[in-house]
């Protein structure tokens, strides 16, 4: 099985307090901690487990800047065999379709049976996988939390739907699958693992390598654009309890008593 996994470097929501910059039009990115998108990590683990069972290769690809190389290396330390960085000034400001078009160009350079994306990334869109499938004219299934890839021409996948129910599907190869968290337990990557792949050559491809017209992607090609970031004024919000922990607990207990919590 030749498997391509699309991964993205994103700000880590568990590690950061997000602030706007002084102009108010972007995040203050100076001290942000980045990591690989949570969903993509599950996708890479799943790909590795499938290849361990049935043989083959796992390639990880990302569209990003120089710093995105670190997430490719991290996923290669997990066990992905190859990495590819798609990087060009012309790619900046791409919308979902721009990213999908770039990934499509890379997919067509290989001979993949399976293409994985995460179910969603930092922007909460969940769009790139479905777009990529449609551009490639391949079948697609999103939010997959179970894969049985023992058969030749088809695989059986479970999609996690509302209420945690599972929608079972049979899907023909090649296909594009978006992976939901919880499908497996991604392995731990230690410093030693990262060191092992530190010197592996990772090819970097730009617009001309991919045979893509720079004007069709990036900001120029985007039909949907983010204009700014803001923090909405949502009325009152919570009543914040203040004081020493003891004082806070005292206030909280009174409220819990009044509301039937105790």
């Amino acid at each position, binding site marked *: 099985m030749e498997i391509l996994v699309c991964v993205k470097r994103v700000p880590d929501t568990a590690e950061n307090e997000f602030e706007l910059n002084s102009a108010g039009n972007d995040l203050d990115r100076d001290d942000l901690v980045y990591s690989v998108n949570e969903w993509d990590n599950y996708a890479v683990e799943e790909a590795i487990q499938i290849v361990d069972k049935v043989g083959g290769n796992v390639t990880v690809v990302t569209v990003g800047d120089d710093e995105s190389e670190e997430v490719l290396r991290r996923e290669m330390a997990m066990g992905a065999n190859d990495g590819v960085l798609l990087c060009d000034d012309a790619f900046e400001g791409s919308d*979902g379709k721009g990213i999908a078009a770039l990934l499509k160009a890379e997919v067509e350079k290989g001979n993949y049976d399976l293409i994985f994306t995460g179910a969603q990334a*930092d922007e909460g869109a969940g769009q790139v996988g*479905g777009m990529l499938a449609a551009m490639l004219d391949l079948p697609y299934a999103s939010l997959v939390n179970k894969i049985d890839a023992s058969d030749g021409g088809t695989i059986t996948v479970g999609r996690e739907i509302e209420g*945690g129910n599972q929608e079972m599907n049979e899907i*023909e190869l090649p296909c594009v699958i978006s992976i939901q968290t919880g499908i497996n337990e991604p392995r731990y990557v230690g410093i030693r693992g990262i060191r092992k792949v530190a010197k592996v050559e990772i090819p970097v491809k730009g617009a001309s390598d991919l045979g893509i017209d720079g004007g069709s992607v990036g900001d120029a090609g985007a*039909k949907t654009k983010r204009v700014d970031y803001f923090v909405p004024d949502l009325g009152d919000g919570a009543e914040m309890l203040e004081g020493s922990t003891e004082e806070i607990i005292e206030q909280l207990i009174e409220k819990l008593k009044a509301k039937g919590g105790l």
Partner: protein
Amino acid sequence: MTQIFAYIPHQNGVAEDIAMEYPAAAQKIDASASLTAIVTGSGADLDAVVNEMTSIYSEVIKIDNADLAYPNAEVVRKALVNIIPGDAVFLTAHNTLGMDMAPGLSVKMDSAYAADIVDIEGIEGSTLKMIRQELGGAVSTHVESDISNGAVLTIRPGSFAPVEGGSAGGSITDKSSDAGDLSVKRKFLEIVEAEVGDVDITKSDVLVSIGRGIEDEENIEIAQELAEAMGAVVSCSRPIVDAKWLEKSRQVGTSGQTVKPKVYMAMGISGSFQHLGGVKGNPFIVAVNKNPKAPIFQVADVGIVEDILDFMPELTESIQDL
């Protein structure tokens, strides 16, 4: 004039709530636009939903085909491409069907795509201005789409005010024969129901709900002790189940349980919409989070900025001493 089409998800012959929410979204896109509901399915269930929709929408398109009896997104998409005009604005829910079907639809229609829309500011020329969120709700963004060649938008359920009552007396157009060839390379097999756990969190009036802030499996004990002192049950957010620290039946959210407690203690939970989508019945929400900017504080009744690993044991002790 803008033409807007709204795709109606339904189950067992009943439309999902979002069907009542699209009209407000359409109104915000363009108050003078035409709005048409599209319902796909098969047989009596489909007819029941179509009839229900005529009270809300003045025009309802029905697509009846045995292949659409279960909404396999690959099949639905194929049918829709043949029925929606190329320059229309198409609305669907940002739910598991919408996420499956809509991104590819926008490619096939060569239109703009915008996902998980929570509010709409309107059209200027051919630019549609919308609001969405990023980073699990930590920040909001204004986005603009060029809709000169149409648009596909997924709408976050619960974001637009539902239509009340309804006597639109809408007309029904049967476009089943326009759906075209519906053969696809993905076959729906069956639904496997979620497993029932040994604790039913939906039955408890008080929930101590833990999120990624619990940090370690061993710390779950701390939450259990608090729950015991309060006569409550421990529930959780998705990452706790993904890590296999608690069973799936304890997960609150759109892909877990829907709970209606009196009191909901959100401990180290950031407040993503998929999590909050499972918290219903307007409970008294207490949020404890070490990040003062956590989105959960926007929806909680009471907020406390503390480390839950220190705070919960102290609270437990104080309650035991009462």
